[in-house]
C-alpha cells in the first residue's frame, strides 16, 4: 500500500515535470501552447543523445537540456510566437499544432523515427527499502527535483513583482503596456523559461516514458489534463493536480484494473464539472 | 399604491464583507425611485441580487407579492424584471439592429423558434426602427456593437432593456459616460415610458437624480441609511456628509 502511494506520488511528479512548462506558457501566459510537447521532446532528445552518443553524464545533460530548449524557445518567441499572443485561442491552437507537426517530421528527418532509450547512471538505478517500503531511486530523485522546482517557481510567481506584472499583462495586454509594464520582455523571458522547463521535463521523463518523434502528440493530452485540472494562474494547482492524477491513476489501476483506462479521464471530467476553473483558481 | 418589487431582510456577504445588510425595501408600482450611496455601498450588489445574478445569503425577494428569490434570471426577465448594467454588456459581434431584433423576438416568445427567419417576424422592423431613431442610433444601425463609440454603446445598453418592455426597470448608472447633452435624451426616453413601469435608478449624477426621481433611498455600507422624497434627501445633512458633499447646493 505505502509503496503504491509512493509510486502514485512519483508518477504524479513525473506528470508535473512534464507539464510544468505548459503550466507556465498556458497557465500563466494564457497561451494555448500545444507545441509544449515539442519542447519537451527537444529536451528529451538533447539528454538522450548527449548521454548515449557523447557519454556526457546524465546529470550534466539536464542543465544543457534546459538551456538549449530555453534558447530555442526564446528564439522562436522572437521570430514566430510574438504576434500570436494577441490572436484568438483558435489561432494559437492552429499555430502551435503547426509547430508540432514540423517538430515531429523534423526530428524524424534529423534523428530518425526509432525510439530513443535513455541509460541512467548506476547510482540512479535500482531500488532501496526503507521501513518496508520499496522505493525506486530514480523515482525518489524525481520527487526531490520536482519539489524544489515547484517551490521555486511558485515563489517567483506569487511573491515577486515579476509574477504580478505577468498576470497583469495576461489580463489586459494593452492597458499593461499603457501603465509601463514591459510586456514584450516579460513574455519573452517567461516563454523561454517555460520552454526550458518543458525541455527539462522531457529530459527527466525520458527514462520512464518512451521518446520518439510522435512524443508531442502522444502525450499532449496528459499535459493538458494536468494544467486544466490544476487551474491556470498558479503553479501549485498543477502540482496538486499531478499528485491527484498520479495517485488516482496508480491506485485506480491497482484496485480496479478493469477501469484502468478510465480513471484519469473520470477525474478530469469530475474535477472540471465541479470546479470549472480547476483545483486552484485566482479570483473568480 | 402597492409594491411591485419588495425585499425582506435581504443579506449578502462576500467573505467577511457585508455588501448587503438586512435590506427591506419596497418599489411602488409606477415609481421613479433612485438608489444612491457612496462607492462600494452595495448598490450594484443589490441589483445583482434582485435580478438573480448572485444568490442572497438570506432574505427574500418578492415580485408582485410572490417570492422570486430562487428563480432563474431569465424567468425573472420573462416576468418583466429587467436591468441595465453599470459596465456595458453588449453582443459584440452583432449589429445594433440584430441585437434589438433578437431581444424583441425573445420578449415575444419566439426564442425557441428555429425555422422562421428573424426578419420575418411581424412588425419587428417597425419596432426596431422606432427604437433606433428614439435612441439616436440611426447612423450606426448596421454597425457591430463592438465598433460603436462608447456613448452609442451606452445608449444601446439602455435601448436593449427598453426593447424588453419591462414592468420593472433597474438601471445601474445609465448616464455614466453619456455627455450632458445626450443625458436629457436618455432621460426623456425614460420619462416617456408608460407610467405603470416602475423604475429603480442608480446614479451618481445628482442633477439627473433630482430631476428624475420622486423618491430616493440611500444605501451606506450595505444598509438602508435614509429614504424619502428628493427634497427630503437633498436637505438631509447626514446624506450630505456621507455622500453629497459640500459642493451640492439644491
Amino acid at each position, binding site marked *: 500500500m505505502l509503496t503504491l502511494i509512493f509510486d502514485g506520488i512519483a508518477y504524479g511528479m513525473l506528470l508535473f515535470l512534464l507539464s510544468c512548462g505548459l503550466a507556465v506558457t498556458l497557465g500563466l501566459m494564457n497561451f494555448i501552447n500545444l507545441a509544449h510537447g515539442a519542447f519537451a521532446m527537444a529536451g528529451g532528445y538533447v539528454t538522450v543523445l548527449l548521454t548515449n552518443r557523447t557519454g556526457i553524464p546524465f546529470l550534466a545533460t539536464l542543465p544543457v537540456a534546459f538551456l538549449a530548449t530555453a534558447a530555442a524557445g526564446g528564439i522562436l518567441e522572437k521570430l514566430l510566437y510574438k504576434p500570436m499572443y494577441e490572436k484568438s485561442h483558435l489561432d494559437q491552437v492552429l499555430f502551435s499544432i503547426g509547430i508540432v507537426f514540423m517538430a515531429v517530421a523534423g526530428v524524424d528527418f534529423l534523428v530518425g523515427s526509432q525510439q530513443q532509450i535513455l541509460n541512467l547512471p548506476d547510482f540512479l538505478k535500482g531500488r532501496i527499502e526503507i521501513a518496508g517500503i520499496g522505493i525506486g531511486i530514480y523515482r525518489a530523485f524525481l520527487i526531490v527535483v520536482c519539489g524544489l522546482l515547484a517551490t521555486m517557481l511558485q515563489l517567483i510567481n506569487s511573491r515577486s*513583482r515579476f509574477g*504580478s*506584472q505577468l*498576470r*497583469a499583462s*495576461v*489580463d*489586459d495586454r*494593452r*492597458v*499593461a*503596456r*499603457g*501603465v*509601463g*509594464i*514591459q*510586456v514584450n520582455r516579460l513574455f519573452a523571458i517567461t516563454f523561454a523559461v517555460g520552454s526550458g522547463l518543458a525541455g527539462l521535463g522531457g529530459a527527466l521523463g525520458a527514462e520512464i516514458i518512451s521518446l520518439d518523434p510522435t512524443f508531442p502528440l502522444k502525450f499532449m493530452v496528459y499535459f493538458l489534463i494536468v494544467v486544466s485540472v490544476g487551474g491556470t*494562474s498558479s503553479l501549485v494547482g498543477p502540482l496538486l493536480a499531478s499528485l491527484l492524477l498520479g495517485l488516482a491513476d496508480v491506485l485506480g489501476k491497482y484496485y480496479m484494473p478493469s477501469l484502468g483506462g478510465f480513471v484519469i479521464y473520470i477525474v478530469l471530467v469530475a474535477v472540471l464539472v465541479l470546479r470549472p476553473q480547476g483545483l486552484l483558481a*485566482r*479570483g*473568480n | 399604491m402597492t409594491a411591485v418589487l419588495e425585499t425582506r431582510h435581504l443579506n449578502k456577504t*462576500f467573505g467577511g464583507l457585508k455588501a448587503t445588510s438586512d435590506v427591506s425595501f419596497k418599489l411602488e408600482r409606477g415609481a421613479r425611485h433612485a438608489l*444612491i*450611496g*457612496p*462607492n*462600494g*455601498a*452595495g*448598490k*450594484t*450588489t443589490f441589483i445583482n441580487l434582485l435580478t438573480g445574478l448572485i444568490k442572497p445569503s438570506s432574505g427574500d425577494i418578492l415580485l408582485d407579492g410572490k417570492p422570486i428569490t430562487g428563480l432563474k434570471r431569465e424567468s425573472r426577465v420573462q416576468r418583466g424584471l429587467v436591468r441595465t448594467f*453599470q*459596465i456595458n454588456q453588449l453582443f459584440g459581434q452583432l449589429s445594433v439592429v440584430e441585437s434589438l431584433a433578437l431581444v424583441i423576438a425573445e420578449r415575444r416568445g419566439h426564442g425557441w423558434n428555429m425555422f422562421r427567419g428573424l426578419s420575418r417576424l411581424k412588425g419587428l422592423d417597425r419596432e426596431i426602427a422606432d427604437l433606433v431613431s428614439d435612441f439616436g442610433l440611426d447612423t450606426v444601425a448596421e454597425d457591430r456593437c463592438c465598433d460603436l*463609440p*462608447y*456613448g*452609442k454603446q451606452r445608449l444601446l445598453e439602455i435601448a436593449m432593456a427598453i426593447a424588453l418592455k419591462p414592468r420593472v426597470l433597474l438601471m445601474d*448608472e445609465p448616464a*455614466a*459616460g*453619456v*455627455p*450632458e*447633452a*445626450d443625458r436629457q435624451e436618455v432621460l426623456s426616453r425614460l420619462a416617456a415610458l408608460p407610467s405603470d413601469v416602475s423604475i429603480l435608478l442608480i446614479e*451618481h449624477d*445628482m442633477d439627473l437624480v433630482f430631476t428624475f426621481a420622486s423618491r430616493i433611498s440611500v444605501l451606506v455600507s450595505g444598509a438602508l441609511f435614509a429614504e424619502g422624497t428628493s427634497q427630503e434627501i437633498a436637505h438631509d445633512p447626514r446624506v450630505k456628509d*456621507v*455622500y*453629497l*458633499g*459640500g*459642493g*451640492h447646493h439644491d
Partner: protein
Amino acid sequence: MTDLLEIESLSAGYGRAVVLQKVSFTLAQGQAMALLGRNGVGKTTTLNSLIGLTRFHSGRVLLNGQDMSRLSPERRVEAGIGWVPQERGIFRSLTVEENITASARPGRWTLEAVYELFPRLKERRRNFGNQLSGGEQQMLSIGRALALNPKILLLDEPTEGLAPIIVEELLASIRRIVREEGLAAIIVEQHAQQILAMTERAVILDRGAVAHSGDSAALAADTETLGRFLGIGT
C-alpha cells in the same frame, strides 16, 4: 518656460481609419487642460495616441522637447506619462494592492500615499480586481496612474461612477497635485462646467479635429461655443 507637452498636427487612428486629423495643442507644467467634445469625436483616441496605443500616421508628440511619437507605450510611461483609461482597465486577477504595485515607480506617490487619497482602496486591498464596485475600480485606476509618479496625467473621464463627495475631493486633489507638484493633466470630461472650473485651458474636439482651444474660464462663459460643440445650454 517651454511647454511640457507639445502636440503638432497629430493624425492617428485605428487600422486604416484615421480618427484624429491634425490635432495640435500644447500644455505647460502646472497646468490642467479639459478635453471636451461629444461622443465619438476622438477624445479617447487623443489620449490613446499620447500613450502610444493607436496607429500613428503623422505629426509630432513632444514631451519636454523630446519626440515621443514613435516610442512604445512602455517607453512613454518611463518618460513620464500616467494614464487612466476610459474603461479603467483594472487587472482582474491582481489584488488591489498588486494592481498598484505591479507597475509602480519610485517617487512621492507610494502605496500609502494612494491609500491616503482613497481610504476605500485600503479597506479593499485584498480584493481581486473583478471584485470591486465600479467606483472602487475608478479609484484604483487613478491610484495606479499616480503610483507611476508621472509628469503628466491623462485622465479619461475620471469622475465617471464616483460619488459626488468623492468627485469633489478628487478634482480638488488633482488640482492641488498639478499645481503643487508641477505636473500637467489632460482631463476628458462630460461635465463641462464642473471641469472648466478647475482647469486653466480647454480644447474642444469635433470629428477628430480641434474645434476650439483656449482659456477655460472664457469658455465656461461662452455659451454659444459650448452650445454649438457640446449641445448644452441652448
